[in-house]
């Protein structure tokens, strides 16, 4: 242990917001704008960042990440655009059907897993459908910095091209829109070949499109580090599970939105910890017995330790199954 370990909750800090506007963009996409109830400015963010929106939907909590599309220079609001996914797990349906202006919601501080490489001499954005959202923030940011960029935006048809009209009107020379229904496609090979040295490419869209861009860029001799794609690590609330703690002689339930460590602390067990982020090793705990599978999310255990089923790091890792007995 070191100085004064803090029992602060792991993960990103939360922000309470009020839904200030719900704006239909087209048949499938709706924009949600948030303000802070006390009118305070939002934390600044970097283009490419997402926020995780907490939704209380019939007794369970959904946590869905959405790219922040508003101008990073405007701290008065955050905005996201959400495509209705009729087949999906329900987060987008909840937002489309239940959320109204004036509602209070909780979102996380921005997290950026898709940052702009500011060393880039030029930035080429490749968007597919709703994948346009992070680029709206990037464009706003790069315009302020006076950096070179261009956008190639592939949409199903003109009616579903969210923000396509706005973008072409505002940046005529820099935006090209391609319509699937008119058999238009991004001329990727030529595009990649024609770029000056030091260009960075960013892709956000369906998985097939992302793979296509990475593959083609490699074939055309692009350095791996100059091609960026959004990797959404969907946040992991996880199913509740029961744990037997031998030494403390109690059985506790780990809720869907708390970590195993937090559940132990809630029940008065004095469990060791330091980083609360899976790196320091302090919380390492012996598994006495288990029936089920571990979801290891730490950076601490070695592969063979994980395979042995004898160790778990309660600050970040979870378990699925009927029986877990810990030496704690």
């Amino acid at each position: 242990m070191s100085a004064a370990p803090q029992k602060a909750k792991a993960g990103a800090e939360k922000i309470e917001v009020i839904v200030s506007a719900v704006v239909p963009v087209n048949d499938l996409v709706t924009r949600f704008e948030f303000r802070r109830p006390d009118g305070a400015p939002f934390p600044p963010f970097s283009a490419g960042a997402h926020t995780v929106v907490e939704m209380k939907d019939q007794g369970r909590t959904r946590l869905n990440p959405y790219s922040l599309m508003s101008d990073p220079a405007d701290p008065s609001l955050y905005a996201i655009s959400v495509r209705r996914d009729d087949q999906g797990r329900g987060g987008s349906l909840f937002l489309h059907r239940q959320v109204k202006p004036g509602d209070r919601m909780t979102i996380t501080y921005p997290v950026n897993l898709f940052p702009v490489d500011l060393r880039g001499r030029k930035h080429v954005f490749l968007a597919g459908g709703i994948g346009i959202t992070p680029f709206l923030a990037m464009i706003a940011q790069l315009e302020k910095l006076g950096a070179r960029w261009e956008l190639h935006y592939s949409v199903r048809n003109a009616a579903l091209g969210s923000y396509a009209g706005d973008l072409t009107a505002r940046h005529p020379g820099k935006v090209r829109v391609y319509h699937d229904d008119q058999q238009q496609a991004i001329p990727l090979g030529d595009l990649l070949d024609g770029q000056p040295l030091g260009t960075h490419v960013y892709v956000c869209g369906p998985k097939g499109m992302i793979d296509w861009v990475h593959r083609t860029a490699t074939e055309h001799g692009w350095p791996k580090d100059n091609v960026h794609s959004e990797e959404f690590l969907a946040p992991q609330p996880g199913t509740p599970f029961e744990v037997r703690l031998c030494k403390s002689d109690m059985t506790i339930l780990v809720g869907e939105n708390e970590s195993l460590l937090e559940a132990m602390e809630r029940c008065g067990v004095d469990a060791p910890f330091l980083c609360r982020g899976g790196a320091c090793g302090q919380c390492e705990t012996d598994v006495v017995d288990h029936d089920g599978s571990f979801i290891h999310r730490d950076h601490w255990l070695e592969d063979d330790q994980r395979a042995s089923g004898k160790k778990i790091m309660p600050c970040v890792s979870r378990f699925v199954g009927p029986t877990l007995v810990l030496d704690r």
Partner: protein
Amino acid sequence: MTIQFNDETFRGDYSFRNSPWAIKRFPFPFHEDSYMYSVNMEQHRGGPAGSVFEKRFDVDEHYVSEMRDRALVLAEDPLRCQSLPHMTLAGWDLLELIMVSKSEDYPDLFELHRDGDRWRWVNKPLGIDDTFTFMDETTLPYGPLEYITRQTQGDFAVLDQRDDNLWMDAGMVTTQADWSLDFDIGMNFFEWHAPVPLAHELGIFKRALKFLMNVQQGAPARRLNWTMTVNPLLDTSPENYHKWGIQKTELTAENIGAKQHLRVELQTFYRLPRSNALVFPIRCYLIAFQDLVTVPKWGRRLHRVIRDLPEELATYKGFIANRPLMIDYLSRHDDGLPTSPGVWADLETEPPLQK
């Protein structure tokens, strides 16, 4: 409380002193009687009232004099502050983080008035009252990184995060424990840590890097590091080794209590919002052995730690030659009694020295 700022030097006549207040709140880095490298990171969201962990950027009695020392170093060697072109935005991020934190945490010392991009910054201890345009470098006397770190204790490494690594692409480094920004600039996490013994083999850097890349906005982290310095020198840089290295040979049994200092770094980690860079403030605290042993627990423990420290670490930290002198001095402050767990002084509960 209001802070009385010392008028003191970290060179020449070395008039640096710690008040009883500063001694009591010194960040003693050892939580047990031995020491080895570890992934000793924890969240940085406050700490006990009055401790150096309480505020985001601790300001203490040495503030004004430390800033004067930094100005002297920069006048001789401007390369102590560098920022690669893509790091300017991170510089503004840092300026904002510090101005907002200090004005909130020390409203009697610092004020920030924001009207859109028009900002007024008042730094009372240093007598500064500047109005400038946020994100417009031409309205400040220095770049944003240099401007704000000339007014903030501690060194600053600003790391760009890309390609699954951290890159030292900017910094202000004038109070360092024998490493050089000019040498490390542009290096990645593994490259600049290459000289450190044992820690690579223990897998410490691999895990630490993963943790750091995951540090999120609004959720800073911290750790402590330590070394030894003869005379209260802030600038123990490789650039000036010819000036301070020789002072290590001037240690004697008579002067060690006053001259030998434990040097502790409070290192914090913040995600910067606009640039997505990581800033690594390294705040240096010095304490003379003779002051440190006024806390009985710390005297006992420091003796045991230094006596049993692996040779590789004593060599890397640069005090292997003086270790016998240190052990001799410290052993007189260790009566062999057990020590309480944790870093705190525990003055009320730990017995006085029994010899």
